[in-house]
C-alpha cells in the first residue's frame, strides 16, 4: 500500500502569530516553524497503516525552504521518502491554490491513500483535504477518529456533533484525521539518524507543469483586506447574587450569544 501523508509547517503553536504589514501574509520568520500538530497524528496514522499492511509512506509538504525541516521530522518518525513543493510563486496561496498545488504533486504517483491532519493551527480552515480529493476525483473520508483498512476498502469513524458516522470508500481515497485517532510517536534517535539518508524530492511549479497564474496570492480567492490588533481585554463583569444571580448570569450569557 502506497500512502502519502501531507504535512504543513506552521509557526510554533504557542508563539504569538503576526501578519506582515506589507502584504498581510502570516509572518513565518518571526516564530520557530514546527510541524502542524494534527499532521503528527496523520503521520502516525500513515505509519500504522503501512506497518500493518506493508508498503511505503511518502511525506508531502508545500512550503518555503525551511519547511524541509518538517519533511525531515516526518522522515525521522519513520516515513520512507519525501516530496517538498517549494516555489516563490506559491507564496500567499489560499486553500484552493494550496489544494491545486498539492493535487498536482500527488497526481500520477499511484497513492492508495492520502492522509491529512484535519486542520492547521495557523489557517484553521479544514478544507484542503476535501479540495484535494475533489481535484483528484477520489473519495474523501474526513474527520476520522478511527481508520480501518481492509484490502482496497477503507472505513472510518467520522466525528460528528452527535457522535460518529461510519463511512466506507474504496481506494484511492483521501483521509483527514482528528487528534482522538492515535498518540503520535516521538522520532527515535535511530530515526533521526536514518532520516538524513532518506530521499527528498524538491520540486517547483515547472516540474508540476503548473501555471504560476493558478497559485499564489494573485490566484487566491480569499485575500486579507485589512487587519488590526485584537482589542485589549475588557474588564470582567461582577454579578452579585441577591437571590437573582442565576438569572443575571443567564442574561449575561444570552447577551453574549453563548446561550
Amino acid at each position, binding site marked *: 500500500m502506497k500512502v502519502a501523508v501531507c504535512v504543513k509547517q506552521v509557526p510554533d503553536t504557542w508563539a504569538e502569530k503576526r501578519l506582515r504589514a506589507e502584504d498581510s501574509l502570516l509572518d513565518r520568520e518571526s516564530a520557530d516553524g514546527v510541524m502542524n500538530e494534527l499532521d503528527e497524528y496523520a503521520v502516525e496514522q500513515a505509519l500504522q497503516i503501512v506497518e500493518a499492511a506493508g508498503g511505503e509512506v511518502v511525506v508531502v509538504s508545500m512550503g518555503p525552504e525551511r519547511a524541509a*525541516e518538517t519533511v525531515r521530522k516526518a522522515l525521522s518518525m519513520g516515513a520512507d521518502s519525501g516530496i517538498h513543493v517549494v516555489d516563490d510563486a506559491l507564496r500567499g496561496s489560499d486553500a484552493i491554490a494550496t489544494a491545486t498545488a498539492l493535487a498536482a504533486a500527488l497526481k500520477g504517483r499511484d497513492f492508495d491513500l492520502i492522509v491529512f491532519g484535519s486542520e492547521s493551527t495557523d489557517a484553521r480552515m479544514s478544507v484542503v483535504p476535501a479540495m484535494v480529493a475533489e481535484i483528484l476525483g477520489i473519495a474523501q473520508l474526513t474527520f476520522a477518529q478511527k481508520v480501518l483498512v481492509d484490502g482496497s476498502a477503507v472505513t472510518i469513524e467520522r466525528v460528528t456533533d452527535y457522535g460518529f458516522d461510519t463511512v466506507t470508500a474504496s481506494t484511492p481515497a483521501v483521509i483527514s484525521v482528528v487528534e482522538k485517532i492515535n498518540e503520535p510517536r*516521538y*522520532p*527515535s534517535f535511530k530515526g*533521526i539518524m536514518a532520516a538524513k539518508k532518506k530521499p527528498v524530492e524538491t520540486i517547483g511549479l515547472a516540474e508540476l507543469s503548473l501555471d504560476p497564474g493558478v497559485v499564489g496570492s494573485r490566484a487566491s480567492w480569499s485575500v486579507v483586506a485589512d487587519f488590526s490588533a485584537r482589542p485589549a481585554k475588557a474588564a470582567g463583569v461582577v454579578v452579585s447574587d441577591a437571590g437573582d444571580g442565576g438569572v443575571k448570569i443567564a442574561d449575561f450569557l444570552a447577551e453574549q450569544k453563548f446561550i
Partner: protein
Amino acid sequence: MSKSPQHPFALYNIDSLLSEEEKAIRDVVRTFVDSTIRPNVAEWFEKGHLPARDLAKECGALGLMGMHLEGYGCAGMSAVPYGLADLELEAGDSGIRSMVSVQGSLAMYAIHAFGSEEQKNAWLPGMAAGDLIGCFGLTEADYGSNPSGMRSSAKRDGDDWLLNGSKMWITNGTIADLAIVWAQTDDGIRGFIVPTDLPGFTANDVKHKMSLRASVTAELVFDNVRLPADAVLPGVVGLRGPLSCLNEARFGIIFGTVGAGRDCLETAIDYAIDREQFGKPIAAYQLTQRKLADMSVDLGNAMLLAIHLGRLKEAGTLRPEQVSVGKMNNARIALEIARETRGILGGNGITLEYPIIRHMNNLESVYTYEGTNEMHTLVIGEALTGIAAFR
C-alpha cells in the same frame, strides 16, 4: 518593559554550535520531558516513587538507553548529542537523568567495554530497549572516594565464583534485573554481571532521602551469591574498569547539571517578570537583574565548557582531569543557581509547585556523587602540580 526577554542561551547563541541533527535530538528529548516528566515529577518526588519500569521502556523506545554505544540495539550517537539528551532529562529531574545515566553509561557501558561477545548479546539489546534495567555496584558504605579499599569479594569455588559483601548508594538497585558488581578477587578488582534474582542477592531501598526522591537508591547485599564462571567481565582487571565507566557518566553530568540550572533560571526569570512588589515587577529592580545577569553568564559559560568537552570527547582526546574540570564546575554552578533562584521566588521557591527546590535538593546529591567536588578539585590539583594530595 520595552523589549521581549531573551533566553540566557540566546546571549551566547548556543544553537550556532549545534548541528541540525543535534538540535533535532535535543528537541525530541525536550518534548518527551515536557509531556512525560514535567507534569508528574513533583508528585513522584513528593511520594518518593518513580514508575521506573514504564519510564525505562519509554526511554528505550526513544533510543536514550546506552545512546552513545555502538551496535547491540544502541543508537550509536556521538558525545554532544548524548550530552544534550542528558541536559534535557536533567532539566526535568536529576533522578530521571540518573536512571538513564546508570543504565547507559555505567551498566551498559561496562558490558560494552569489558564484556564478552556472549555477554553483550545476552544483555545489551534488552537494556537498550529499556526492558531490562541495570545498576552498578562500586561504592560501599565505608569506601566512597576511595573504592580501592572495597571489602566485597568474589572467591573461586570450583569453576564458580562466590560473591560476598555489600554496596551502598546504588541507583536503580531495587528495580534492577542485573547488577554490575565490582569485587576483590585474587587477581585484583574484577567486574561481575549479577542477575538480581540469584539466591543470596538482596536489595534494600535507602529511605528518608531528601534528595533524588524521584529516583531509586538502594543498598545491595551479597550473601554467598553463586555466580557461574562466565559472569566475570573478561576485558578488565583493576580499578581502571569501574573508573572508566564513571568517566562516561560524569561526562553526562557535565551537561545534565546545566539542564537543572537552566530550568531554575528560566523559572526565576519568568517569575521575576510576573511578580510585582511595590508596584513594579521584581525583574525591574537592579538587585534582581544583577542576580539574573550573573547566573546567565555562569550558565552560558558552563554550557560552552560542556560543548567544548563534548567536542574533545568526539575527537577522542578528552582526558579524565578535563572531565573533572567539567563536573566540578558545572555541578557547583548549577547548585549555586538553584540556591539563588530559590531566593528570587521567595516563599514560592520552597514549594513543589515550582521546580527549583526539587532541583536544589537533587543537586546536593549530584554535587557529591560521581566524584565529590573535593575529589575532582584534587584531581585538577594533581594535574596542575604533579602531586596527588589524596594519597
